[in-house]
C-alpha cells in the first residue's frame, strides 16, 4: 500500500473521529456512577425501543417503496418512467422539517409515531430508489435469460440472479436509511417522537449538563455500531463479477398491460405525498403572507448555502478518496474499523457534532466560526455518504487494470491517478452530489458553527419558524428545494460509464 495513502487515510480517520472523542470525554466527565444511572433510567430504555422500532419500520417501508418504484421504472413499460425517476429522487431536495411542517399544516393533529414513520419513509425512500436503480441497471440480462432457459421461474431468477448482485448496494442503502433515522431531528421533534436524537437535544437544552446528554448520545453510538456491524456481516465479501466477454445487455421491459394505470397512480401518489404536498403548502403560505419579501436577503442566504455546501462537499471528497481507496483496494481490519467509525459519526445528531467542533474550534481561535470550520463540520457529518459511493466505485474498477498499468511501467500512485480515479469518477461525483445536497439542508451544526451573520437558507427557515412565521419561511424553503433539485436531478440520471464497469475479464 502506498505510504502516502496510509498517511492520508490515518489523518482523515483522526479528524473524523473528533466528535466521537468529544462524546467519550464528555460522557465520562461526570464519572461512571452518573453514566450508569443515566443509562439505567426507564426513559433511556423506552427511548431505545422507540428509536429501534422507528428505524426498522422506516427501513422496511423505504425498501418496499424504493424497490417497487425502481422495478416499475427500470424493468417495465411504465409510461413517463424517466419523469417518475426524477420525481422519486426529488424528495431528496425537501428537508424533513419542511415536509413535516407541510403535513402538520394540512392535518392539524398530525403527530406521533405513525406520522414519523410516514415522513421518514418518504424522506429516505429515494436513497433506496437510487441504489435499486443502479443495481438493476448493472445486472446482465443474459444471465437472467440463461436462468430462465434453465427452467427457473421469475421468483427463482430474482432470488438467485438479481438479489445476490444487488445485495451489497441495497444493504448499503438500507444502512444509510437506518443511520439517517437515528440522526434525524427535524421531523421527530415536530412530531414529538422521542428518539435518541430528540432526547439528547432536549437534555442539552434543558440541563446545561452536557455529561448526561453525552451519555445518552453514547448509547446512540452503540446502537449505530450494532447496525453497521450487522450490515457488514450481511454484505459479506461479495463482489459481483461476470465471466465471459461482451457488454451487459439491458433487460427487455416487461409489459404490464392495463396494470400500468395502477402503477402510474401508485407512483403519482408517492410523488404527491413527498414533494407535491410540501410545495403546495409552501406556495399557499407564501401567497397568503407575502407582503415584504427581502430579495437581497434571500439571494445572500442562497449564495451562502451553496458556498458552504460546496466547500463541505469538496472537503468530504478530499477525505473520502483515500479512505475509499483503502477500503476498496487494501481491505484490512483497520480499514473496516475506520469505515465503521465514519458511519457511526453519520448517526450522530448534528447538535453533538456542532458542540464537539465548538469545543475544539473555540480553542483554535482563528478558525472558530469561520467558513472552513463549517465546511469541515459538513465533511465530517456526511463523510459516510461520500465514502460509501467512492468505495463502491473504486471496487468496481477491475483489478486487472492495475496489473496492466503496472506492466506498462506506472507506479502505484500513478496508477491510482491515471487509471483508477478517472474510471471511478462517476461514483465519486455521485458522492460529491449527495454530500452537497445534504449539506445544504443541514441545520443544528450550521447554527452553532456558522460565521456570525452568515445565514444559510436552512437557518433562515429556522429563524422564521421559531417565531411561527411560516409564511415568512416559505420563500426560503421554496428556494432551498429549487436549488437542491439540481443535484438531485443529476443524481437520478443514468451513469453512462457504468454499463461497462462490471467486467472483470478483458479476455487476455
Amino acid at each position, binding site marked *: 500500500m502506498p505510504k502516502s495513502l496510509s498517511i492520508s487515510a490515518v489523518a482523515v480517520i483522526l479528524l473524523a473521529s473528533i466528535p466521537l472523542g468529544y462524546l467519550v470525554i464528555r460522557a465520562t466527565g461526570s464519572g461512571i456512577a452518573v453514566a450508569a444511572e443515566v443509562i439505567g433510567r426507564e426513559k433511556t430504555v423506552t427511548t431505545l425501543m422507540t428509536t429501534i422500532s422507528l428505524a426498522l419500520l422506516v427501513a422496511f417501508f423505504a425498501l418496499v417503496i424504493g424497490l417497487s418504484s425502481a422495478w416499475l421504472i427500470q424493468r417495465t413499460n411504465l409510461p413517463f418512467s424517466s419523469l417518475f425517476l426524477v420525481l422519486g429522487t426529488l424528495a431528496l431536495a425537501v428537508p424533513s422539517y419542511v415536509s413535516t411542517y407541510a403535513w402538520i399544516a394540512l392535518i392539524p393533529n398530525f403527530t406521533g409515531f405513525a406520522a414519523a414513520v410516514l415522513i421518514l419513509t418518504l424522506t429516505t425512500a429515494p436513497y433506496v430508489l437510487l441504489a435499486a436503480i443502479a443495481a438493476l441497471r448493472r445486472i446482465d440480462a443474459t444471465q437472467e435469460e440463461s436462468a430462465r432457459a434453465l427452467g427457473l421461474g421469475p421468483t427463482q431468477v430474482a432470488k438467485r440472479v438479481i438479489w445476490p448482485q444487488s445485495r451489497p448496494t441495497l444493504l448499503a442503502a438500507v444502512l444509510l436509511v437506518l443511520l439517517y433515522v437515528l440522526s434525524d431531528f427535524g421531523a421527530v421533534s415536530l412530531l414529538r417522537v422521542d428518539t435518541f436524537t430528540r432526547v439528547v437535544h432536549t437534555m442539552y437544552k434543558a440541563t446545561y449538563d452536557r455529561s448526561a446528554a453525552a451519555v445518552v448520545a453514547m448509547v446512540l453510538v452503540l446502537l449505530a455500531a450494532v447496525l453497521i456491524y450487522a450490515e457488514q456481516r450481511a454484505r459479506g465479501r461479495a463482489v459481483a463479477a461476470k465471466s465471459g*466477454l461482451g457488454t451487459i445487455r439491458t433487460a427487455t421491459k416487461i409489459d404490464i398491460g392495463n396494470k400500468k394505470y395502477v402503477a402510474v397512480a401508485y407512483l403519482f401518489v408517492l410523488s404527491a405525498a413527498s414533494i407535491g404536498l410540501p410545495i403546495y403548502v409552501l406556495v399557499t403560505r407564501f401567497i397568503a*403572507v407575502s407582503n415584504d419579501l427581502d430579495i437581497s436577503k434571500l439571494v445572500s442566504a442562497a449564495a451562502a448555502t451553496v458556498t458552504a455546501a*460546496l466547500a463541505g462537499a469538496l472537503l468530504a471528497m478530499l477525505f473520502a478518496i483515500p479512505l475509499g481507496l483503502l477500503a476498496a483496494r487494501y481491505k484490512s481490519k483497520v480499514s473496516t474499523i475506520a469505515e465503521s467509525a465514519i458511519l457511526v459519526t453519520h448517526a450522530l445528531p448534528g447538535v453533538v457534532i456542532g458542540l464537539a467542533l465548538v469545543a475544539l474550534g473555540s480553542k483554535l481561535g482563528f478558525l472558530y466560526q469561520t467558513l472552513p470550520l463549517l465546511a469541515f463540520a459538513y465533511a465530517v457529518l456526511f463523510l459516510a455518504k461520500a465514502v460509501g459511493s467512492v468505495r463502491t466505485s473504486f471496487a468496481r474498477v477491475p483489478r486487472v487494470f492495475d496489473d496492466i498499468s503496472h506492466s506498462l511501467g506506472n507506479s502505484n500512485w500513478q496508477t491510482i491517478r491515471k487509471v483508477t480515479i478517472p474510471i471511478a469518477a462517476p461514483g465519486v461525483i455521485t458522492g460529491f452530489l449527495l454530500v452537497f445536497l445534504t449539506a445544504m439542508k443541514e441545520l443544528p451544526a450550521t447554527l*452553532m458553527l456558522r460565521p456570525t*451573520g452568515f445565514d444559510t437558507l436552512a437557518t433562515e427557515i429556522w429563524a422564521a419558524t421559531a417565531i411561527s412565521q411560516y409564511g415568512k419561511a416559505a420563500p426560503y424553503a421554496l428556494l432551498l428545494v429549487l436549488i437542491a433539485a439540481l443535484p438531485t436531478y443529476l443524481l437520478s440520471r443514468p451513469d453512462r*460509464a457504468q454499463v*461497462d464497469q462490471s467486467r472483470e475479464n478483458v479476455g487476455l
Partner: protein
Amino acid sequence: MVIQNYERINLRKYLGLAAGAALLFSLVACSSDNQDEAAAELTIYSGRSEEFIGTFFADFETQTGIKLNVRYGDSAELAAQLLEEGANSKADLFIAQDAGSLGAVADAGMLATLDSTVLDLVDPQYQSDDGSWVGVTGRARVFAYDPTKVTELPSSIDDLLDSKWSGKIGIAPTNASFQAFITALRQLRGEAAAEQWLTALVANQPLTYEKNSMIVEAIDAGQIEIGLTNHYYIYEVAQSLGRAINVKDGFFAPGDVGNLVNVSGAGILNTAKNSAGAAELIKFLLSNESQNKFVTDTNEYSVLPDLPAPKDLPSLKQIGSPRVDLTALRDVAATQRLLVRVGLL
C-alpha cells in the same frame, strides 16, 4: 485482445471547478473574519429572534456607530454553546429569552457583574440576585382561552384540575417558559405538592404541543379551549396568520403561581472585548424609548416601573406575579426530571 473503451472523465474540468470553489470560499472566509477591525464593535449572542430585536440593534448602530455582529439562535442552545466555548468565547453580550439560560451562564462564572447605573434602572425583582444579569422585558404566564366557549374563567391553577377541563387543556412541556413555571411551582409549594399537581393535571388529559404558538393556534382552531402559555403569543399568532384570532389572554388571581412573570434579559460576558459598548447597549434597551417600543411593537411588558402595559392587558402590578426568585428558575434539570417522572417529557 479486446479492451473496452472506458469513458475518461475530464479531470481538468473538475479540478478547475474545485480550484474556483476553493478560491471563492477562501474569499468569503476572509471577508467574514472581523477580528482585526476597529474596537467599535460588539459581538452579541441573541436568543431573541431578529424579527423582534433587529430594529433595536439597527437603531443602536445608527445612534452610536458601534457595529453589531449578532448571532441569532435559541436561548438554551446559545447558553450551551457559551458554556462549551468557555474562556475562549468571542461573545461580548448574551441576550436571552428567559432567566434560566442567563442563570446557567452566570452559574459557570462567565457573566461579569453589571454596573450599578444599569442595575438601578430595573426593579430588583426583574434581575439576578448577584448583579450578573438584568431583565429587559417582562413576559407574563397566562392562560389563553377561547372567549366563546369559556365563560367561567379559572382563578387558580388548581381550578384546571377539575374534570370539566378534561381533554381541553393545552400545554407545551418541552418549552422553557412552561418549565420555568413548573420550577416556580416547585419553589413555592415544595416538591411533593408540585408533583401532586402535575399528576392531577396529567390525569385530566391535557394535549401537549411543541411550541406555545401551536397552543394558541389550536385554541383558535377549536381543538382545545384553554392553554398555558405566555401573554404575547396571541399577538404573534394573529400576526403570522394575518387575521384576528378567537383567543384572549386571561390571568389567574393575583399572587397565583400561574401568573409568573419571567423576563428576557442580558448579561455581559467576562471575556468581552468591549464591555463598555455592551453596557451602553443594555442601557439603550432599558431606555424609555426602547421600552415603549417593546410594549407597542412586540407587546411585551416593560421592566421599568412606570411604563404602561401592552394594550388590553393589566399592568404588572395588577397581575400580581408570585414572589419567586427568578435566579432560582435556572434549576431546570430537577424540573425536567419531575416532568419525566409524571410522563410529560
